[in-house]
């Protein structure tokens, strides 16, 4: 079972490797579900592969935006380059892109992204049939649902262990671009769709606004929350290991490098300690929960700051469509 860590920069990648990640994912600029500031230019992708492999880790490339039809040839060209650099896998969403990449690079492991929103076993079978080997489980699935998936289907299962559970299903939400969408084409011809997490990665997190609830013109509630909770799954990690999931994934390319280093170290040690316990011995999670609480506060602070910035950006007027 592998521990998969995020890298929004080369520094983050080095820190993730040093702190024990088995594999790291990075996004090429414009092509993954994060804003471009946390994606990497191609020269850095090549360096990422070198650093990861030198540290004994695998490198996955996240090309999980929902692109335009006309952008698919561009993606295939890029994939040929990344494959020639020995990336170990691709995280993808669009079924057409998945089928094409699998057809051209049948040896490459394709991971269906969280954005594919794969919710049931028949869904998994569909993605298996077009070439997907591992599937990221939606954050709302239960352990029973994962167990059924594991026992029924020959597929790798990845579980987010440090992330947020949105009000909506990931990949099935376009609240953000409904409120602000900025079209910017990068120098390589990729439309960045700023404001659309499904298409370009920048999510304004409008669900976290302080919404009021109205019935017609009548204010019913001055503050309603579209529930969005952080989760860390410390209690579930032993169960997930016992269940035999293939990958535990940490989300957070946008966090600071020291925070990601600390998160990766925490989960590395937790996983290793659980696996090293004497057979049949109970495993005490209390000290791990204590240790997590300071990481959680640090992470919550960084996230609430970034949410405030994103919501403020959502109120800004949209500039005329531009080429970058």
């Amino acid at each position, binding site marked *: 079972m592998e521990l998969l860590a995020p890298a929004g920069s080369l520094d983050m990648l080095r820190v993730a490797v040093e702190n024990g990640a088995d594999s790291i994912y990075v996004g090429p600029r414009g092509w993954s579900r994060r804003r471009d500031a946390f994606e990497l230019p191609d020269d850095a992708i090549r360096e990422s592969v070198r650093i990861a492999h030198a540290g004994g880790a695998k490198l996955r490339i996240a090309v999980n935006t*929902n*692109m*335009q*039809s*006309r952008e*698919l040839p561009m993606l295939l060209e890029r994939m040929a380059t990344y494959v020639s650099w020995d990336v170990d896998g691709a995280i993808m*969403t*669009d*079924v*057409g*892109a998945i*089928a*094409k990449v699998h057809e051209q690079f049948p040896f490459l492991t394709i991971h269906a992204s969280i954005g594919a*929103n794969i*919710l*049931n*076993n*028949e*869904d*998994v*079978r*569909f*993605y298996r*049939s*077009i070439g997907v080997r591992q599937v990221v489980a939606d954050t709302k*699935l239960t352990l029973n*649902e994962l167990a*059924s998936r594991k026992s029924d289907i020959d597929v790798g299962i990845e579980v987010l262990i440090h992330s947020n559970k949105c*009000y*909506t*299903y990931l*990949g*099935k*939400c*376009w*609240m953000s*671009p*409904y*409120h*602000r*969408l900025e*079209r910017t084409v990068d120098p390589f011809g990729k439309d960045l769709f700023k404001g*659309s997490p*499904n*298409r370009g990665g920048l999510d304004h997190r409008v669900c976290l*606004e*302080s*919404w*009021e*609830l*109205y*019935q*017609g013109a009548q204010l*019913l*509630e001055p503050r*309603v*929350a*579209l*529930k969005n909770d952080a989760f860390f799954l410390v209690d579930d990690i032993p169960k997930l290991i016992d269940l035999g999931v293939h990958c535990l994934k940490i989300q957070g390319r946008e966090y600071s490098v020291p925070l990601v280093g600390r998160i990766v170290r925490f989960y590395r040690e937790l996983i290793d300690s659980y696996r090293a316990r004497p057979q049949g011995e109970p495993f005490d999670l209390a000290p791990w929960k204590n240790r997590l609480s300071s990481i959680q506060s640090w992470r919550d602070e960084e996230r609430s700051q970034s949410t405030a910035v994103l919501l403020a950006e959502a109120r800004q007027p*949209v500039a005329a469509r531009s080429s970058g």
Partner: protein
Amino acid sequence: MNDFELNTTISNLKNLRETDLSSFDGVYLGNIYCRLFEQNFLERLDDLKEGIQRVKDAGLLAYVTTYAAPRNSFLPKLRKVLEVASSANADAVEAHNLGVLRIAHEEFPGLPIHVGGFANVYTDSGAAVLEEHGARRITPNYELSLEEIDELAHGANLPTEILVHGKMPLGISDYCFLLDYEEKWGVNCPTLCQLPLFVKRDTWAMRSVGKGIMSGKDVCMLEHLPRLVASGHRTFRIEAAYETPAYRKEVGGVYREAIAAALSKGLYSVADRWWATVREHAPVGLCNGFYFGKTGMEYLGAESGMLTPFTLHATAVE
């Protein structure tokens, strides 16, 4: 025979009985958001059977939709829904989930499948993959612009369905936050989500149906029907799962007339009475969704004092 199709959505038998369908060519039966929606066709198989028959007796196309976010526990019931759709000769089922598409294609091979807007079809290659898995019609993801939809339709060679009016789906959840207010408001599930509820903040507004969230403004493509028709689109939907029978009748009537006008050779213009009707049914206003590559809640067109892309093009040609 019609040279276009105008369809709509109806969640239960009660609503179907109350709706004047004379403006429509087809109806999608069922509520895609919630299993607990009042008397949801997808949970009441006898009602579904009667609904299909009723629509067909009216000379219309009877489609059966399915849940937008089905978990494993939904699948046994959905298989039964597909069985009913098949045995009652529904004209198609709509799959928003690729697992459901797979079940329909493999287990009910005679049943035509339409792929819904929550299935996330963004590319022509994606549509082609789904065609291999039995799809016969695609509603592209709502985030696509008309330019992108045209590319997709051209590349995939599959008919596309376009939402021309109504509240555009923006997201789906497994969690109904409205249930927190049952006691306080004295209104219970399953009627709670049928209240006209909007979450608002300053100029922002979204329609909430508990497990679903939709645009606060009604997508309105009245002004742009000639553009759609010129691009070859012939299948149009008025999204009305949470609207009243009056909404369907009146807005449907406007579009029936407007699409016919857009398809005729004469000069097309939006009649004042059409504006009056759609405005009356859109308390938060109108928008174009993502069709012009803009922020979804914007409206582009003569109605906003701006020239439409179609008008610009026509002027340039002249």
